[in-house]
């Protein structure tokens, strides 16, 4: 080990990404880097393409131009096998949780494991399920169906299902949207806990500045299909930009 602190490694690198749906250009040349072990918050108005961006990162959508590099691999150029391998390392927590309706919480959590870690015994799987459930504080829900859970519980189960493969990168799509303030605080600390406990690097999409402030090491502002402002929370909101100020005013004015 060298005494000198080396530059943090870049785990996701996005360059000049453009994406249109029909005539509507959503992303107009987005550039962004995610460093190892950092929580990067992406802020932006509804419909600016935040969800589209992380779907491109995980290969659910393909950009029209530009490159997306994840853990050193160009996502759009991967074959099906390599993409599967990459996805084991990239967890995606969906905006609407996307739990499997027809399965219990336990089956939801087991689902990625039994398919991708075939060597695991029943006991090891149970242990993994209990560990992540405990991490999100919902051990008691193990036999319930997703329809019996509250919105906040569903979010947390969704995060747990993503954590169970122990990904290096976590992508959170609006983890606190539509939740009460106390649940938001719980989710924020869950995100921070995940980072400390599993040493993940994360992109957190949100409208919620408290969440941004609590969880974000850096903030990136997505405006008009490009990242206009990237920096710490205070740096970003020191700006006089008419498009950034309303975010702050709305969230913190009494």
């Amino acid at each position, binding site marked *: 080990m060298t005494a000198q602190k080396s530059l943090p490694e870049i785990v996701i690198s996005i360059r000049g990404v453009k994406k249109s749906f029909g005539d509507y250009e959503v992303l107009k040349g987005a550039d962004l880097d995610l460093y190892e072990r950092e929580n990067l918050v992406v802020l932006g108005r509804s419909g600016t393409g935040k969800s589209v961006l992380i779907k491109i990162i995980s290969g*659910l959508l393909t950009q029209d131009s530009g490159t997306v590099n994840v853990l050193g691999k160009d996502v759009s150029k991967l074959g099906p096998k390599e993409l599967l391998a990459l996805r084991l390392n*990239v967890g995606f927590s969906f905006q609407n949780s996307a*739990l499997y*309706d027809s399965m219990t919480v336990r089956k939801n959590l087991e689902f990625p494991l039994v398919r991708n870690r075939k060597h695991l015994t029943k006991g090891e799987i149970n242990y993994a399920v209990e560990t992540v459930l405990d991490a999100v504080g919902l051990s008691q829900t193990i036999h319930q169906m997703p329809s019996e859970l509250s919105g906040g519980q569903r979010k947390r189960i969704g995060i747990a*299902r993503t954590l169970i493969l122990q990904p290096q990168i976590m992508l959170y799509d609006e983890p606190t949207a539509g939740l009460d303030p106390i649940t938001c605080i719980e989710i924020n600390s869950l995100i921070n806990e995940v980072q400390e406990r599993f040493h993940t690097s994360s992109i957190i999409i949100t409208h919620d500045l408290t969440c941004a402030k609590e969880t974000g090491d850096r903030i990136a502002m997505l405006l008009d299909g490009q990242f206009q402002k990237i920096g710490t929370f205070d740096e970003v909101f020191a700006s006089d930009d008419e498009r950034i100020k309303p975010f702050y005013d709305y969230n913190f004015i009494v």
Partner: protein
Amino acid sequence: MLLELYRVHQFVMKFFKEFLFPPYEGKEIIRQCYQVGYRSLLLISLTGFITGIVFTKQSRPSLAEFGATSWLPSLVGIALLRTLAPLLTALISAGKVGSSIGAELGSMKVTEQIDAMEVSATNPFKFLVISRVIATTVTIPILTFYTALVGLIGGFVNVMFNENTSFIAYIQSFLDSITFLDITASTIKSIVFGFTIGMVGCYQGYNSSRGTEGVGKAANSAVVIGMFLVFVEEIVATQITFFFKT
């Protein structure tokens, strides 16, 4: 329209490509087979039985005119085996199973559950589509023979009240009249029906548009297109079997 055909072609090709390579979702296939059978069993039993009774009752006067009511078992049996059972089973399954596959996959699609499977490094096509199509392709032929049997029993109920034929004799005269070709043709036909119903349901659900409206549409078109294709295939199958007979 052409684009749609191309997409259907791609979907079917993808099915065969994925079908040929393991791993298979064994548990899920069995669960789906059970679902397919379970969903239509009651309705099929009822329809098959009533069709058997009614068809026998309706045919009786015409045969009686020639004093040939002893031909009833073979007449009913052949009609059931060749056409009624495969068609009834397929139509009922298209209604019950096709629509529920369309709705289920459709809602999984719009609530991003299919995307969620994909990002958790599972192949949703294999888990959802392959298992369902295998299930309908295997289960619907079995249901078809079940329908034929129930229909025969229905027919016997009518015969029982009119002649004193024993069930054994009734079945015997049915067995004497059917050929190997009848059984093979029905089996192949209902395999094709089953495949069609599963495929149409999955295609509609898997490609349903965003929003809850898309789910309803997917379920609806699964039934309409499924039934339409079943009729088309029935016509083609009849032509082919005629060709083999002559």
